[in-house]
């Protein structure tokens, strides 16, 4: 299947090329070009999937179905817009002397490799390779986070590496157990870890092993999802890395982890025929939502605040998938999509805002709407969107999640109510003075790239008001696949 080859090939090649010329001024454009290529390839792939259903390629090593193909498109898209955004952003960073040519080279090539690992994780059919991709994604992002070489960024990267490394190790143990269980049914050979095969025979897998396996997989991939209390690495990593990296981290990487977790949940549900996995996920999800919102209410650093909000939303998504059922699953998938769009848009706006102010401390960023209205409006609209203000898409999914929870899990409703209220209160009171009011900021040296911001917000808006039929078909199909 040639399209898939391009989807994976572009970023890989891009990584290689940029490893050589990444420090040159035109490297920024090359970066964009490769991301664009990836995106185009992803679109073509999507078209093919829509045309003729799920496909297996390369000795079944790769499997594209509705669940992951739109994840692939989303990843490619956000990857592209982020690349566009990072052109002026990184240029300004270079002018500020925070980036040197060698670091630019590292940044660019790692950026491409990172998107390669994510796409690999999405498309692979082999749970082992999925694990490998996750680990590789961790490694590449560790380098991206530490690219400034400041004390803080080193610390963040170190914590990120150790915590996620350990977490991922648990996931590997889980995978081993999964293999062990599968081996009894399929016998010991290369195809045993293929998700399609496992999915086919999930009913026969040994429950006791699968239970143990899911425990490890949940801890492992949950660490990458950023579930409380495994989240400790997340705010540091988001806050200290370059803003484009923060954008892709919370916009995309968390999705990959969530995707891995979902694949495992499907198997577990099939094998156990009970609600164990769902209940665990609901518990962790709710805990994440509550704790994250209270963290939000005490933030001073803008990027930290939004990374906690990512934890909150991941918790919400986990909760939704935990509830299961067609509506909740639909809502969860929708929420994943819109969250990555809106959150990355917010990070774009925040990036420029912090560059203006020369600091990430919110109390020193004031009156953006006066200096640069587009950034200001982008930020305030983005924040309103992420807080679940209609007609943005986040509201659509939160609407479905809350209303479903109210009747299916009434005990959870008060927690969600309080958490969302607290999140709203604490975010608005910090963002309003940043956007409105008097200011002392000066305009930027280079024109900021705000097209991505408004493209993302626009898409978020559209998803709230009108979900195109084929996209809807994806969602429904994927939701059905997740069962529950």
């Amino acid at each position, binding site marked *: 299947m040639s399209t898939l080859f391009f989807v994976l090939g572009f970023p890989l090649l891009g990584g290689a090329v940029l490893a050589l010329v990444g420090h040159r001024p035109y490297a920024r454009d090359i970066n964009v070009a490769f991301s664009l290529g990836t995106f185009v390839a992803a679109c073509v792939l999507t078209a093919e999937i829509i045309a003729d259903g799920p496909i297996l390629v390369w000795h079944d090593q790769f499997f594209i179905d509705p669940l992951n193909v739109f994840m692939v498109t989303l990843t490619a898209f956000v990857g592209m817009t982020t690349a566009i955004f990072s052109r002026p952003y990184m240029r300004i960073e270079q002018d500020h002397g925070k980036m040197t040519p060698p670091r630019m080279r590292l940044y660019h090539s790692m950026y491409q490799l990172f998107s390669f690992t994510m796409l690999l994780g999405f498309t692979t059919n082999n749970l082992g390779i999925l694990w490998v991709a996750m680990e590789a994604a961790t490694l590449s992002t560790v380098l991206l986070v530490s690219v400034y070489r400041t004390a803080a960024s080193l610390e963040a990267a170190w914590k990120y590496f150790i915590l996620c490394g350990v977490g991922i190790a648990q996931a590997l143990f889980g995978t081993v157990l999964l293999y062990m269980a599968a081996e009894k049914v399929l016998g010991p050979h290369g195809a045993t870890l293929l998700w399609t095969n496992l999915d086919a025979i999930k009913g026969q897998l040994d429950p006791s092993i699968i239970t143990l396996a899911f425990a490890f997989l949940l801890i492992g991939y949950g660490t990458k999802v950023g579930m409380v209390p495994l989240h400790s690495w997340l705010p540091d990593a988001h806050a200290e890395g370059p803003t484009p990296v923060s954008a892709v981290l919370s916009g995309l990487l968390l999705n990959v982890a969530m995707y891995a977790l979902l694949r495992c949940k499907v198997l577990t549900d099939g094998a156990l025929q009970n609600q164990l996995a769902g209940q665990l996920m609901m518990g962790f999800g709710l805990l994440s939502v509550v704790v994250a919102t209270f963290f939000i209410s005490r933030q001073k650093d803008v990027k930290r605040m939004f990374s906690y909000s990512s934890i909150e939303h991941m918790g919400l998504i986990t909760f939704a998938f935990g509830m299961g059922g067609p509506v909740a699953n639909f809502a969860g998938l929708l929420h994943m999509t819109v969250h990555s769009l809106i959150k990355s848009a917010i990070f774009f706006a925040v990036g420029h805002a912090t560059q203006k102010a020369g600091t990430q401390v919110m109390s020193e960023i004031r009156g953006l709407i006066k200096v640069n209205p587009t950034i200001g409006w982008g930020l305030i609209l983005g924040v309103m969107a992420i807080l679940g203000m209609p007609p943005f898409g986040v509201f659509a999914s939160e609407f479905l999640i809350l*209303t479903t929870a*109210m009747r299916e899990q009434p005990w959870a409703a008060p927690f969600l109510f309080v958490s969302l209220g607290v999140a*709203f209160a604490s975010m608005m009171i910090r963002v309003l003075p940043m956007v409105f009011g008097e200011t002392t900021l000066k305009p930027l040296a280079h024109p900021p790239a705000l097209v991505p911001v408004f493209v993302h917000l626009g898409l978020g808006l559209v998803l709230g008001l009108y979900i195109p039929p084929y996209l809807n078909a994806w969602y429904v199909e994927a939701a059905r696949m997740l069962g529950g």
Partner: protein
Amino acid sequence: MNAWLHPLLWVHLDWVLVVVAGWLLIGVLGVFALRRFRLVAVVLFPAGGLLALLLMGVGISAAFSVPEVAILPIGLPQLPFHLRLDSLSAFFLIVIGGVSAGVSAFAAGYFRQGEGTPPGLICLEYHIFLASMAMVVIADDAYAFMVVWETMAFSSFFLVIANHRIPEIRFAGYLYMLVAHIGALGILLCFGVLQANTGDYTFANMRAQHLSPFWGSVAFVLAVLGFGAKAGILPLHAWLPEAHPAAPSPMSALMSGVMLKMALYGILRVSFDLLQTKIWWWGVMLMAIGLSTALFGVIFSTVQVEMKRLLAYSSIENVGLICAGFGLSLLFSSYGMHALAALALTAALYHLLSHAFFKSLLFCSTGAVLHATGERSLGKLGGLMRYMPWVAWPTLIGVLACAGLPPFGGFIAEWLLLQSFLFTSGLPSSVLNMLVPVMAALIALIAALSGYTMVKYFGVIFLGQPREEKLAGAHDAGPWERAGMLWLMAGCVVLGLFPNQVIALIDPVTHLLVSAGLAKTVAASGWLLVPVSVERASYAPAIFLLGVMFFFALTYLLVRRVYSGRIRRAPAWDCGYPWQDARMQDSAEGFGQPIRQIFEPMFRMKRELPTPFDEQPSYRVTVEDPLWYWLYLPIARLVERISKVIGMLQQGRIAVYLMYSFITLIVVLLVVKQ
């Protein structure tokens, strides 16, 4: 589909959508004309006003016709926007159209250049606000409703902080938005209950569900909480006296005159229409909340020293009264006493309508005063009647209506409400029978107090001598502003003089909600307003007014004919006290002092009394809302404390973080082991 091409085939719903679309279009044009101020002022806002008139017409004619439904191809794929225009929606469309027509005209003359947000942008937000309100009342599924509801919230939020340079205004906007959002979450959960696990969010489906008493009560309480937050009922009122003064006056007029009504619409829609079962204590709860809100509002409004805050608190009072009416009607219909339920509901809706008009009129007048003098504090105003008669006289009408005096709209509403309270004997529970007259007494007290407030409002602003020199230069309102205020004033008068026609308009609503109406008895009795029967009670505002007028004219003519009309102008006598100046009139604080004294325990007062040895002795008293200190701040502190505790989790030690993961792993393993 073809019908769309032939305007002649359009039904009311189509026309409503046309108006909505027109408003959105105007808004967008406003953005394009961002700096072209004249265009916005003289073309766009008046155009919006005309559309509002059209909407009002549509509403009137739709009130008497059968419900219409439509489906817009937007929204969630399984759940496109369902729209439905029944008599209830029609009634509220009349409110929106009628009021916003006047306010738009006023706004055309009101917005000046260089005040915070550019007029073009205000035009956008303003018309989105109007459109979303029109959509709220015709939305027929939970998702569409929530979307337009929140759109209404945040468009109005941006209007509130139009002048965002001032931190207080920003905070007011923040508070408003926060309470609105909390309320919206409540409504969301309420719909979650109502859809009863069917996953079908259309109102039609919700009507079909028969909930258990428990879930029904949950839904009702959530609805009261959610919509009450927007309506400003106790204890969720705190945003209202902050947001209304902060917003530009036409905005305050719309928020108080129309937006609060949207919340009341929500309460009606959920508790009368969507919920099939009605339980008696719902009504009692609503009544209790409503009356306490009303009493609280009116008492606080008497002691305010800032004109818009005064009006804001008075809005709280009126909303409370309306809620009380709803509660009574709910109580009656829960016992199947439909005629009385209809009476109470009619009273409440009548009050809703007239409040919409007179309150927006009053807010417009504050706007005009604000522009003329730049003063919003009552203590610095006075004597404006001479300088701005075009504002003063309509305001006088509005004040009389707001004080609930005959022959204006406010009085008829209170009259009907008292009637419905009076004829309640026959409720199954004797306790309720005892309770209801007491509530009637409360209502009488509240009405009288609102009279006090209104005398203070009008007297201090427009009568007496100017308390500041600069007031002498106050200019009167411009033509657009006059037009708007006259329109609203006309509304108050009509509502006061032609109750039967208005009740005929309300009748379909009561038939829809409590399956009974007053129209027949009323229509039978010509000029007289007769809710039940002539023996019981009757009131004829027209004759009433004519009577007063007649005697007025008679005495005037007689006196003029018989006696000399000699008049001499001289300095005020004032018991012969020679050195009087404007400072000797009652200040706003002074006028509220008796109420402050009587209801002292309700306030949170700080007094600064001068000592005999002060060089410049000064007296200052600040009255604050105790709920702010008993409810809101404690909650804020609680959140702060919790977040401090939770912050302990993240102390930066990687070993500790690893420990978290480790313990989590162990715990999960233990959990799955069972």
